[in-house]
């Protein structure tokens, strides 16, 4: 038989190909790494301070710290469809952390996704975004990490990915294809827009959640110039990190001032950050300077709408409020809303300014996909804690409701008052509940310590 005759040749060719691919895979990372020639004075207090601020804008702590774990000691699982991978220890501990990294090692890991041992990092680390950070900014972070971050002995955890996916060398190909080297290219001429673009595209790595990913898990665009898939909205960890572009389902209903307020305090009069975004505000944006917050906000407001998406939808008159006030419950969703949600979000869906977010007219509620609304209804969540408001409020979980009723109430709030959005069905709830079973708890999932001593300590608990 023909095949039989060819089989050994095919096997040999296959193996040879694999060996070659492997060898090349070992080589590829070395093509990415750079030698900066920079000597970092890690004891320069000004540099350390700058580095601390830059680490805030890059939000390293959020992914490299577990709930109740030591800051930057790693171990936080990130769920992928194939199993969890864990963030690593980036404290200056010599045995388990990055204590023996030179500046170049540090720079190559952050910007190019290549470890000291020349292995490629999983793209869960947002190096495609960090890549545009200037070496001198990374140098400042290096000074901060090496001096001010407490060294913690905590060995890294192995990934739970199945074989092949847990090999590191194929990642080198991923990097070569999906994260080619790129530089920061300013799109606009004003200082604020340029700074905003840089923060959003670079250290803020907003796209790692807000940009749709392609079939190879790569972000479809790393900058607005590339395509307006950038920040067009995506689902991450069961949350809808919604579109930040200029359409109705994006940020067209927001003003620059509201965005600044949102990034600084985690809330506005009508909305509050929740889920993954609550973590971003709690650990990162609340620490940013007024100028940087302004820059980010004007930049976001300058983004055009996603192709073909309307900036406004036809006005819809609110008939919901009066019906709820009159006790006219014309759907199962209305009865459920009146029993479980109305006490906080109110009959008019306006919530209570800075205490309970509005649901009516809240772009997080009528965003394209219902994932965020679904997840917060099933599992609850807490607003970020910042020094600007006395208390951070929590939405209780409603996991005791039936899946069918969760679908009813989610559809109800997405389509009541002036809201207009797509509908979900019971299977969406089933899937979300299934997903949530495996999801680790985060800081904004648990009850705060309200004892009087804790209250006086304020927001910064890291």
């Amino acid at each position, binding site marked *: 038989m023909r095949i039989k005759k060819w089989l050994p040749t095919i096997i040999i060719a296959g193996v040879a190909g694999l060996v070659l691919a492997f060898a090349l895979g070992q080589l590829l990372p070395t093509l990415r790494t750079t030698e900066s020639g920079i000597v970092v004075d890690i004891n320069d207090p000004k540099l350390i301070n700058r580095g601390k601020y830059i680490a805030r804008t890059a939000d390293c702590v959020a992914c490299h710290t577990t709930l109740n774990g030591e800051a930057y000691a790693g171990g936080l699982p990130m769920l992928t*469809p*194939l199993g969890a991978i864990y963030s690593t220890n980036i404290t200056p501990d010599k045995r388990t952390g990055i204590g023996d990294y030179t500046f170049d090692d540090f720079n190559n890991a952050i910007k190019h996704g290549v470890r000291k041992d020349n292995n490629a990092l999983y793209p869960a680390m947002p190096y495609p975004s960090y890549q545009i950070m200037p070496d001198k900014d990374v140098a400042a972070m290096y000074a901060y990490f090496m001096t001010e971050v407490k060294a913690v002995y905590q060995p890294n955890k192995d990934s739970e990915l*199945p074989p*092949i*996916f847990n090999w590191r060398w194929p990642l080198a190909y*991923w990097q070569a*294809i*999906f994260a080619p080297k790129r530089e920061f290219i300013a799109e606009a001429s004003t200082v604020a827009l340029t700074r905003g673009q840089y923060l959003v595209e670079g250290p803020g790595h907003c796209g790692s959640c807000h940009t749709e990913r392609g*079939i*190879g*898990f790569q972000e479809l665009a790393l900058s607005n110039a590339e395509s307006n898939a950038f920040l067009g909205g995506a689902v991450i960890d069961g949350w809808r990190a919604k579109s930040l572009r200029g359409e109705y389902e994006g940020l067209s209903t927001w003003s620059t001032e509201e965005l600044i307020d949102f990034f600084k305090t985690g809330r506005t009069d009508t909305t509050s950050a929740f889920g993954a975004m609550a973590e971003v505000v709690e650990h990162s944006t609340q620490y940013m300077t007024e100028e940087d917050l302004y820059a980010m906000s004007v930049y976001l407001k300058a983004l055009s709408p996603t192709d073909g998406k309307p900036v406004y939808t036809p006005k819809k008159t609110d008939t919901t409020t009066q019906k709820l006030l009159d*006790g006219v*419950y014309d759907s*199962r969703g209305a*009865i*459920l809303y*009146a*029993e*479980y949600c109305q*006490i*906080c979000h*109110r009959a*008019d869906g*306006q919530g*209570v300014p800075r*205490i*309970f977010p509005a649901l009516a007219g809240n772009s997080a509620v009528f965003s394209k996909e219902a994932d965020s609304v679904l997840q917060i209804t099933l*599992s*609850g969540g*807490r607003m970020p804690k910042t020094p600007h*408001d*006395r*208390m951070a*409020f*929590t*939405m*209780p*979980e409603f*996991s*005791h*409701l*039936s*899946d*069918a*009723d969760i679908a009813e109430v989610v559809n109800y709030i997405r389509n009541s008052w002036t809201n207009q959005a797509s509908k979900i069905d*019971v*299977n969406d*709830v*089933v*899937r979300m*509940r299934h997903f949530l079973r495996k999801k680790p708890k985060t800081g904004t*999932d648990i*009850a*705060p*310590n*309200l*004892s*009087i001593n804790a*209250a*006086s300590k304020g927001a910064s608990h890291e």
Partner: protein
Amino acid sequence: MNKSFIKHATAALALTLITLGTSGCSDPDPVEHNPAQYDLILTEDANADIGHYKLPQDTSILKEPNAEQIFYGKRLLNETKRLLPDHVGAEMNCNSCHISQGKVPLGDPYINSYNTYPRVMPRSGTEVDLEARINGCFQRSMNGTPLDRESPEMLAMIAYMKWLGQNTPKTQKVAINNAGKVDTSLVADTARGEKIYYAQCAACHGDNGEGLKDSRGDIVFPPLWGDKSFNIGAGMARTYKAAAFIKYNMPMGIQTKGLWGHGNVLSDQDAVDVAEFFAHKPRPDFLGKVHDWPSGKKPKDARY
């Protein structure tokens, strides 16, 4: 071979592997409502095991022949001030104190109310029926005036309480407590209570205990003291009663557990301190107070 071909080939490979890896786990069945469940006991014999009470969801009201009346009762209890302004002096609703529509143990629930009355009340020393008990709350807690015992409003409120009792026979009781316990031997520290108030309560109840109304003038957060609060005849004006309420029910909206994400975060001492702080602030007098506790035995934290 161009770059986009490699991109597509890699992508296709990745997709195949992922589909292989994730297929095989089909969707589980939808979950049914999982209501809170409590034991039923006999009023004579608390140890008899006679089944369970399941907390009903309001959607099941639709199955009742008098659904409209029950819904009306529920709305009256939730929005008493807006719907019955002539009978309510305070800026309060019945469910300002009867947490989550009277469905929460330790939050002054109505779960057993329909079967508990008539009974002899220690405060009045006389037998009181449910109508009189409700009117007691109108006069004290709501600093208002009683409802006509036969009025549609009174009947509707009672219909809601009856429905909530789920036809539990008169001889039985749902094994829950209406109020929780705090250590009544604790001595209150008002200064500490004030600090707790401003840190954990004032965001909602106001810096001057004035509460908050919405744009239509309806109550969002009830006041805790002043002219528009409950009067000195209310149970809530007594330090240890208020402390027991606060410990298990306030603040609300601070955790993911419980229908209102409420309570269970303050220690007994915290609760007693903050209760003493607000309960003893100025509030309306209660003219009927002269008739209370006719046989003596006045509790030590009564306001008069």
